[in-house]
């Protein structure tokens, strides 16, 4: 069975790097037909592939936005197909609410993050585009989320008073900072790696794939 996992992971990764959805799904289907357990598909093929992508990005900047997109979409699709077939109910790692900052209408990064989180069995509430700070916090409290994810494509929506800074203030006033962490992402943060501190977020991620890993850590911090 280990050989099947290794072969499937290799085929799945190659297909993703070629942005070939059909080939990636075929690799998974073949493995399932050969008897690979749905749990193994998710935890031994899909999630390690995301991990490998994170490592390749940090080592050589080798993956493009398109590859991140296809990875997240296929990983989420496969995971959602497999979970109903698990022998035991899945353990949800945590819950994240995510959206773009107020005045920002760029949703691609958010979608990539959402796909990865689903594949990592993290529940996600997608609040959509142009989300007010109050809405972020209300949704996080209602859904008992451990993390708020705020995506911004423009510098004025990242730094502005109606973005992360305001979310932080509302959390502070409500005494919720230890229970709910904030992660930010998007183009301005790639051009200024210290910007997340200025907007008072707890963390940032360089891309949607890496965000999954950073959010997992934040969930552990918030629940510890």
């Amino acid at each position, binding site marked *: 069975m280990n050989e099947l996992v290794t072969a499937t992971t290799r085929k799945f990764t190659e297909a993703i*790097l*070629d*942005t070939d*959805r059909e080939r990636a799904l075929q690799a998974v289907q073949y493995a399932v037909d050969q008897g690979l357990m749905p749990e193994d598909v998710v935890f031994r093929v899909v999630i390690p592939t995301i991990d490998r992508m994170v490592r390749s990005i940090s080592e050589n900047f080798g*993956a*493009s*936005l*398109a*590859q991140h*997109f*296809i990875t997240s*979409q296929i990983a989420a699709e496969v995971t959602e197909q497999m979970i109903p077939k698990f022998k035991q109910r899945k353990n949800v790692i945590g819950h994240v609410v995510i959206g773009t900052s107020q*005045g*920002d*209408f*760029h*949703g*691609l990064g958010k*979608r990539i993050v959402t796909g990865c989180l689903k594949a990592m069995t993290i529940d996600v509430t997608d609040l959509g585009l142009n989300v007010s700070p109050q809405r972020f916090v209300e949704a996080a409290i209602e859904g008992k989320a451990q993390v708020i994810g705020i995506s911004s494509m*423009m*510098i*004025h*929506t990242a*730094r*502005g008073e109606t973005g992360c800074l305001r979310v932080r203030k509302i959390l502070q006033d409500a005494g919720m900072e230890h229970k709910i962490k904030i992660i930010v992402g998007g*183009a*301005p943060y*790639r*051009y*200024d790696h210290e*910007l997340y501190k*200025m907007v008072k977020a707890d963390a940032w991620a360089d891309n949607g794939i890496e965000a999954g890993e950073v959010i997992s850590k934040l969930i552990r911090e918030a629940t510890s």
Partner: protein
Amino acid sequence: MITGMDRLTAAVNGTTSDRIPVFCNLIDQGAKELGMPLKQYFSKGEYVAEAQLRMREKYGYDNVWSLFYVGKEAELLGCRRIIFAAEGSPNVGEMILKNYDDIHKLQVPDDLTGHPAFEEPLKCLKILRKEVGGRYPICAYVTASMTLPAMLIGMEKWMELFLLGPAEVRDELLTKCSDFFRKEIEAYRAAGADILVYANAFGSTDFIPMNLFRERSLYWMKRDLQPGGTNGLVYYCGGARMNPVIDQVIEQLGITTFYLSPLDDLAEGKKIINGRALTCGVINDIKLIDWSKEEIRTEVKRMLAAGMPGGKFLFGTLVMPYAIPEENIRTMLEAVYETGSQ
């Protein structure tokens, strides 16, 4: 008196002038210059032209812009909702393509110059041409067919259609966007724009893998540029990196100016270009909001040390954020004027 056009011509020809050319892209700052809200500022070509002329005079850099905001192109294709911020670039507030049926119905206007959304940019260009034409390069912004759909259908849906198909719908949209591009660039050239900034995030391997760049980006860029040629064209990936594709762009498209990303290795970019084209070193202007004067000077010196040897070099910015303090703009420009003297 040496003009911006003299400096640019010298750089293109590989000769020297008093200093290297400097392209400082102040767009939204025009509203601040005229003391009016962004929405009012962008309502009239006269305002934009006046602010462009004033700011160039005030700071002494070498170019002026006919660009209002990038979403103008969506307006030319039917978008009626632009969302203006108090202190930042306007956003497209309505995607005109909501489904594939809308793609089939999308019509490229026959005559852009008669389009109401083009009226004010044309007024702006006319004034710029009258006031500084031939002396200071007049820039226009034209989005490539591969990238324009992001403004029409949204980046998420475009990435999905681009990667997952259906291929015939994707190609139908690309063909329409390419037809639009051809008309737009022709209209800007006819109205007096000297520099056509060819914006294509999908021309960078930060966006798509190399195999798709070769298969699709090069094909669609060739189609965009085939009728009008590459005269005055600047290769720009919207701030994404381009070093890995420069060789192919020179060889297959014949483009001779590269507006690098601040994230590109500038010395490496110049080495790849190797005298075959003009290199623009681009400062990370988001950092200009908070950098100290010393940090700005250090960065300018670093960039010029990497870019100036061998000539054929100019200094540039991305689309300068509205929040950059005026004194930081001055510090950057003074540092370039001093270090970049020849």
